[in-house]
């Protein structure tokens, strides 16, 4: 038998086998089958990692039935073998311990964690997706903090709006242009998401211009509002927030439509949109007459917006009023609401109950 030094394979998964497993090898004074050697090492390794399956060791590597270890051992050899086995058990495997020593917790869980598949928390909302979606939509719904109004009367359309932009409780701007000039004879108002309104009104302006170029005639207010409504309907449910009024003068006369991001579109004579609209409606509905003059209508619109800004925290800044006539729109006024307040309700000198007077000279 060729004398061969066996460098015992400490590492389990080394497939390099220095000789056939059946070969008898000598480690020092001990002669043993190489297979035995491998088995002992693997078993000792396993004592630290019992979760590993042992089947790989007992699965036959050969198709032929197992050889019985047909070795005729005399007693002495058998005893030596036993001893060796016992020694094997007490082998110094401190090299292997570094692995598990690093994990101070109980051996069992450490081994589980090492070899369990990596786990992570499921993202929020996966448990109940529909509820999550509803909640997300609610957080985006800032009930359109603004006041805008528009109404048709005999002389055309009046459009008025405030100019405050708010983010929750923070007033981000007092000078927002909420009446958007789509083209020289059509106006749109802004309520809801400022970016959404600005972008889609500009887009509508482009479409109106293209229509004019292609058809050699202006688009009607009906057509323009329908174009916008169709676009908004196709984005329904995706979080656009727009409540707008399209006002204009076309071949059929004055036109006023309310279009919103839910895809709704309404034709009407009087509309007010925004968080301040209930207050504006009160004043507007009270003072409205179809046969007003332009000045009367102007004053009505201004008052209505002023009252809405007085009571609604999300409305304020400057009241802009526009008039749309047969020749297009014209801006009538832009008044600061705090100045309007003192105009409508000037400071009255109030009687003082107890006047401070000098004590009479003694």
């Amino acid at each position, binding site marked *: 038998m060729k004398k061969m030094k066996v460098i015992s394979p400490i590492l389990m998964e080394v497939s390099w086998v220095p000789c056939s497993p059946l070969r008898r090898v000598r480690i020092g004074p001990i002669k043993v089958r190489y297979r035995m050697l491998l088995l002992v090492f693997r078993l000792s390794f396993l004592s630290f990692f019992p979760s590993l399956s042992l089947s790989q060791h007992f699965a036959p590597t050969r198709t032929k039935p197992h050889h019985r270890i047909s070795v005729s051992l005399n007693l002495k050899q058998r005893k030596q073998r036993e001893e060796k086995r016992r020694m094997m058990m007490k082998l110094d495997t401190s090299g292997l311990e570094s692995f598990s020593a690093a994990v101070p917790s109980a051996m069992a869980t450490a081994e589980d964690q090492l070899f369990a598949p990596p786990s992570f928390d499921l993202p929020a909302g996966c448990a109940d997706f529909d509820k999550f979606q509803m909640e997300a939509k609610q957080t985006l719904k800032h009930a359109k903090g603004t006041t805008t109004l528009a109404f048709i009367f005999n002389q055309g359309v009046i459009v008025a709006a405030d100019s405050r932009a708010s983010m929750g409780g923070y007033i981000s701007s007092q000078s927002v242009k909420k009446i958007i000039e789509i083209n020289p004879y059509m106006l749109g108002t802004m309520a809801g998401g400022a970016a959404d309104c600005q972008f889609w009104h500009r887009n509508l302006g482009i479409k109106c211009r293209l229509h004019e170029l*292609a*058809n*050699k*005639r202006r*688009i*009607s207010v*009906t*057509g323009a509002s*329908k*174009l916008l409504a*169709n676009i908004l309907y196709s984005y329904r449910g995706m979080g656009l927030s727009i409540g707008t009024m399209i006002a204009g003068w076309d*071949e*059929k006369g004055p036109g006023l439509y309310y279009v919103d991001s839910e895809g709704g579109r309404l034709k009407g004579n009087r509309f007010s949109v925004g968080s301040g609209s209930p207050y504006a409606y009160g004043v507007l509905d009270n003072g409205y007459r179809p046969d007003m003059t332009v000045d009367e209508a102007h004053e009505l619109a201004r008052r209505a917006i002023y009252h809405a800004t007085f009571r609604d925290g999300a409305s304020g800044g400057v009241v802009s009023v526009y008039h749309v006539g047969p020749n297009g729109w014209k801006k009538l006024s832009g008044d600061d609401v705090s100045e309007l307040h003192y105009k409508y309700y000037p400071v009255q000198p109030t009687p003082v109950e107890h006047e401070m007077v000098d004590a009479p000279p003694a």
Partner: protein
Amino acid sequence: MARYDRAITVFSPDGHLFQVEYALEAVRKGNAAVGVRGSDTVVLGVEKKSTPKLQDSRTVRKIVSLDTHIALACAGLKADARVLINRARIECQSHRLTVEDPVTVEYITRYIAGLQQKYTQSGGVRPFGLSTLIVGFDPHSEKPALYQTDPSGTFSAWKANATGRNSNSMREFLEKNYKETSGKETIKLAIRALLEVVESGGKNIEIAVMTHKDGLRQLEEAEIDEYVAEIEAEKAAAEAAKKGGGASTSASS
């Protein structure tokens, strides 16, 4: 030359699209069609080839409506016409839906012409072999309009025009005799133009009249016969006047 008339997307060296020109040939073999625009009426007339006895003539309609205010007559391949008319009808309704307004005559003509042009610039298709005459009233307007398209996809507005068989002679007649007419005079002018190339008689002519109030109305055979009789009488009177005048001048000379 023969190499350039197979695929339509290929120009010939001298700048022709042969397939389009052959389509125009097909149009020239089709039924005669004429359209005349008056001040408040617009008339379409089509030559009616003699219907076989067993055919139900109601199913063969040569003048069709695209919408309540637009009508179309065509010359050329009738099967192509059916496809084009269906697409145009859908477009009319789609326009009503997106813009809440009926189409203008120019819009639908542009659409049909665009469709015809698309088929001259695609691979594997042939052009539509028909020219159309499109008449109608713009919404909110009382003025009638008449447009013509052809297989190449061009379109233009006309006061009076003809396509199909012998269209040149009809057009010459119209150029000579056109004047601003209204109502019955427009109808008579259209019939006179058709009679230049078609045998006279109500059963060889189909006429449809469109007004702003009443929309499209197909004339009955009896009515057409009346008009034809009137026209014949006028012609005879005119000829008699000419002859009489000639005789008097010759007598005086």
